């Protein structure tokens, strides 16, 4: 081999390991890991630590696989949006076919391994989640309806249900309460983002609510969903997953969240532009804490239960 052929084999933009890892959407994965972990521990069945670790790992891997498949499918709009332009495929570091191969391989691996590590119900639910996120949300409805975020929210809400199933192997009401919490939380979270990243979705032609129904309607939707979310979150305090710690936490956080949604609803575009969407940005940041705090409280209630302290006794 000559020097010339060696040099021609070098591509300056060749992907590093981190670029392949970025395909798995690690930030989304943290939400998946945390909510699945809470679902697993909130279940009334003790799980061996090694089995629990494997369950969370393979649920996270399944979430990562669906992230890679989403990036493969959405590469065209990712290259248009400022927020997603630097992702591995639009930046030219990873090819679309590589992302597809990684996504499919990790999907098969994660579902198979979760089934073997825990039970077929959990494996089937993980497979359904990947299918829902990639086919129903990404391929079918994301570019079709302004309610795309609501549907995407459902896809992101499955991990606590899978965690619960991994522990118990049977369905119950409690994991679906956790599902509902993530499901109702997603629209206000993303619509707040859409308010201050507006040109992104316009440019990409994604029918985001801000584009199809206007920004006033989006502000109203944020308020309505936040009210419904607050009712749900506070109501959950009186179920099997709640308790006094959860209730106290939820009251405080929901009051803050409702105040933020009200402020967003009251503002007009001029006021928002004047302070560069400070209220919308603050609401978005608070929304990140919202879910973490609620699931953290559910986790604390579950951990205290064996000592007779968690829940309503």
């Amino acid at each position, binding site marked *: 081999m000559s020097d010339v052929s060696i040099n021609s084999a070098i591509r300056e933009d060749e992907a590093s*390991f981190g670029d392949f890892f970025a395909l798995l959407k690690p930030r989304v994965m943290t939400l998946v890991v945390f909510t699945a972990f809470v679902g697993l521990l909130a279940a009334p069945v003790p799980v061996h630590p090694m089995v629990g670790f494997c369950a969370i790992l393979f649920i996270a891997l399944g979430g990562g696989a669906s992230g890679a498949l989403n990036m493969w499918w959405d590469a065209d709009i990712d290259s248009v949006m400022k927020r997603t332009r630097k992702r591995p495929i639009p930046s030219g570091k990873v090819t679309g076919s590589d992302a597809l191969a990684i996504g499919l391989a990790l999907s098969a691996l994660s579902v198979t391994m979760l089934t073997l590590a825990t039970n077929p119900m959990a494996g089937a639910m993980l497979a359904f989640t990947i299918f829902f996120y990639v086919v129903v949300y990404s391929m079918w409805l994301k570019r079709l309806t302004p309610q795309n975020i609501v549907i995407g929210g459902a896809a992101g809400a499955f991990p606590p249900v899978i965690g619960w199933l991994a522990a118990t192997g049977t369905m119950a009401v409690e994991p679906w309460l956790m599902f509902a919490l993530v499901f109702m939380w997603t629209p206000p979270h993303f619509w707040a983002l859409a308010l201050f990243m507006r040109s992104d979705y316009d440019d990409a032609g994604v029918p985001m609510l801000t584009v199809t129904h206007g920004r006033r309607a989006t502000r109203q939707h944020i308020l309505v969903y936040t009210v419904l979310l607050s009712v749900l979150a506070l109501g959950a305090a009186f179920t099997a997953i709640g308790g006094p710690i959860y209730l106290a936490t939820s009251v405080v956080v929901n009051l803050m969240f409702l105040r933020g949604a009200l402020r967003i609803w009251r503002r007009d575009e001029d006021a928002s532009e004047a302070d560069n969407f400070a209220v919308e940005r603050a609401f978005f940041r608070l929304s990140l804490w919202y879910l973490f705090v609620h699931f953290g409280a559910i986790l604390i209630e579950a951990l205290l239960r064996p000592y007779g302290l968690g829940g309503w006794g």
Partner: protein
Amino acid sequence: MSIRTTHEIHQRRFGRNLGVGLALVAFVVIVFGLTVVKVTRGDFEPVTASEGQN
């Protein structure tokens, strides 16, 4: 003259190979650990005749 200088690309490739290697080793360790736990707990024990009748 042979090429000795390590290009930044070579480091990136090494990092990628190392990452894949470590991921594979981790996978083997996980499967082994899981198998040990499952066998120790008796997950793979066949159902005995008396249990089957219960």
